[in-house]
């Protein structure tokens, strides 16, 4: 499959300056691309566009030539940098984890998710622990692309290594396409097979 941004432009309503303009970006299944650039250059915006969280003001986001589905499960899933905002504070984590599919024991063990955590509320876990849930819940079979927006920034290096190892393993097994938004060049080089500097493709 192929996830593609075609001549995409984005700005917040009205006449505010363009954040993204005429951006072309292509991601094939099994490909891993790092998206780098200085703060405020639109990395997260492009990530949100690719996962369908925002609508482009110009151009299109295409999945195999078709627009992203609006109603059913979106094959391009985003993982954000604030896991505590991405889980419902009123749900026990088991419910959050199984919102769209049921991860098996092996996956949970590999992610380092302990059984006991499933019975807790999000306020009773740390950011790093919550992030594992956010990742595990979108690793369902219907996911074809993962858009990772600074997903490991809040974790200690050991956990970072664990989580990336697992994400990479699953990405390889299932031929997932990966977009990795990061400021960490070492991580980008280690994890991805291609590095794209957003300012180079953004013609704003």
């Amino acid at each position: 499959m192929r996830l593609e941004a075609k001549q995409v432009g984005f700005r917040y309503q009205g006449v505010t300056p363009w954040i993204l303009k005429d951006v072309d970006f292509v991601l094939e299944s099994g490909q891993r691309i790092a998206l780098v650039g200085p703060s405020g250059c639109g990395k997260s915006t492009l990530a949100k566009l690719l996962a369908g969280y925002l609508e482009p003001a110009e151009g299109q986001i295409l999945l195999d030539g078709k627009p992203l589905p609006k109603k059913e499960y979106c094959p391009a899933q985003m993982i954000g940098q604030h896991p505590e905002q991405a889980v419902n504070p009123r749900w026990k984590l088991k419910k959050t984890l199984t919102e769209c599919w049921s991860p098996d024991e092996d996956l949970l063990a590999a992610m380092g998710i302990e059984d006991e955590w499933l019975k807790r509320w999000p306020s009773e876990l740390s950011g790093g622990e919550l992030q594992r849930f956010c990742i595990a819940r979108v690793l369902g079979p219907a996911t074809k692309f993962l858009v990772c927006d600074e997903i490991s920034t809040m974790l200690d290096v050991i956990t970072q290594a664990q989580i990336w190892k697992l994400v990479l393993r699953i990405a390889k097994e299932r031929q997932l396409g990966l977009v990795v938004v990061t400021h960490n060049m070492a991580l980008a080089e280690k994890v991805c097979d291609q590095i794209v500097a957003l300012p180079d493709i953004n013609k704003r």
Partner: protein
Amino acid sequence: MREQASAVKERGAATGSDLMKEPRTLGPRMNTKKKLILYVSLAGGYLLAVMIAGLFMEPELYGVNYENKFLLPSLAHPFGTDFMGRDMFWRSVKGLSNSILIGLAASAVSSIIALIFGILSAAAGGKTDRVINWCVDCCMGLPHIVLLLLISYMMGGGGLGVSVAVAVTHWPELTRLVRAEALQVKNAQYVKAAYKMGRSPFQVAKEHIVPHVLPVYLVGLVLLFPHAIMHEAALTFLGFGFPAGVPAIGGILSEAMEHIVTGKWWLCLFPGLMLLIAVMLFDLIGDKLKMLLNPGSGNE
């Protein structure tokens, strides 16, 4: 504080499957959750008992009896009697029961208005939002008691006037609360993520939005009661509410004012206390419910 600390310690000590079971209690001490439930049910039970007692009371119990004028509180008449020899205890119970009924009606009507306006305002946004906010500001800008007097007077006073006045003026604060909560959850990342995971708007509303707005709404609803009851009493006290024949706490208190200079202290003390206790109990129920429904403190 000690309770909290011990609750935290208990939670820390419980591991694995232990966590979901009843938290271990040390000796006779209850955990906060059970205590809250006990408080709420006791307070609710008392108020319900007063309401039902008033509803099914024989009018003779607080009937006129000129032989027993101005009796001091005694075993036969725990709250004494008034200038017509009416038993103040039963009159107070009946009056409070009327107040609670009005409070119930007011809370029901006001909270439904608030729910509709709040959700509409958050969901529709734009012009609808602005119009509703303007209405809220208008109502909150007017002194509440003046608005109550106007509406009650316009409706011709009496039981109907006071019920309508109290029922249709208590929605603005709750509307704001509901709107804020609905807006917050609508824009929350986990709601957007749920849509991306293919959940339907109905599922999102049922699973995410309603559970988020409901606690605030329920607590707001309960906290409306004391306001409504106090306003009903105030209106009757000022002479715009129930007619003199109907027992109502406000009316009882305004009558008692005439006799307080002659030393008939029991006429205002006991009914006043009953009103105060009822209001405080509603307040307590609201507060404790808030703690129970909040995930941050619900597990303690």
